[in-house]
């Protein structure tokens, strides 16, 4: 059953990511981004990172994509016009694809030498959360607190950026 889940969610994530990149209406792109993030969260589950999958759904899909949708509906986002395919766009996409092909070949040459495969290690969900919790709150406590301060500063910054000029 394991490889089937990987292939299903991999295909879904690539399809939805293509929709994000190539669709013309912004609100459809936002929904496709939510679907992509759900597929990536499912891939996290196949990698036995249960805590991260739930955190991704709560934070990314539940807050970031919703924020994007609010902003799209707030601003007057029209559809993009029929795109003119210019030469430089084709060259750019070709270059990026060539770069990816180099990366792909480099990764695949290691396939014959690799002996690590995806094996379900018989973990219960609670064990992953317990281990992540221990690591986060004991080992990485300082970055955790600093991230809290960072979020506070972010909130202050957002309020500051949208304040009307009070000098009149």
């Amino acid at each position, binding site marked *: 059953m394991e490889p089937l889940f990987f292939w299903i969610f991999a295909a879904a994530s690539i399809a939805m990511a293509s929709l994000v*990149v190539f669709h013309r209406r912004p609100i459809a792109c936002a929904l496709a981004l939510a679907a992509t993030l759900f597929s990536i969260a499912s891939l996290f589950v196949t990698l036995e*990172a249960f805590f991260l999958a739930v955190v991704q759904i709560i934070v990314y899909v539940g807050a970031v994509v919703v924020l994007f949708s609010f902003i799209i509906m707030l601003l007057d986002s029209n559809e993009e016009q029929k795109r003119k395919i210019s030469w430089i766009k084709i060259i750019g996409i070709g270059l990026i694809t060539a770069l990816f092909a180099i990366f792909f070949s480099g990764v695949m040459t290691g396939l014959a030498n690799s002996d690590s495969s995806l094996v379900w290690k018989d973990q219960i969900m609670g064990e992953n959360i317990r281990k992540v919790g221990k690591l986060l709150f004991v080992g990485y406590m300082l970055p955790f607190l600093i991230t809290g301060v960072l979020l506070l500063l972010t909130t202050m910054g957002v309020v500051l950026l949208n304040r009307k000029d009070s000098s009149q």
Partner: protein
Amino acid sequence: MNILTTITLNHYLVLSGILFTLGLIGVLVRKNLIIVYMCLELMLNAASLALVAFSHFNSNLDAQIMVFFIIAVAAAEVAVGLALVVALFRVKQTTHLDDLSILKL
């Protein structure tokens, strides 16, 4: 070792590379500022997927903690970035990248 039935680390890395490439193409090609920002988030997620794959195949949980912080910081960045977009929209009344060319030489 059949490629289709045995899922190795390489499969996850190639998938992460494909998603990153798609996000990069989106950042360079699209003309709407908000869609460019969404493709940027897609790139961040591709990197997170690679990190979690490494964490699984090396049985080391440190990479999952890093992804946790990446998710938190990315959410903060999206909040500030969209506040900037809204402030920019108030002045210029557009989100099309061709019209936002004051800094162009």
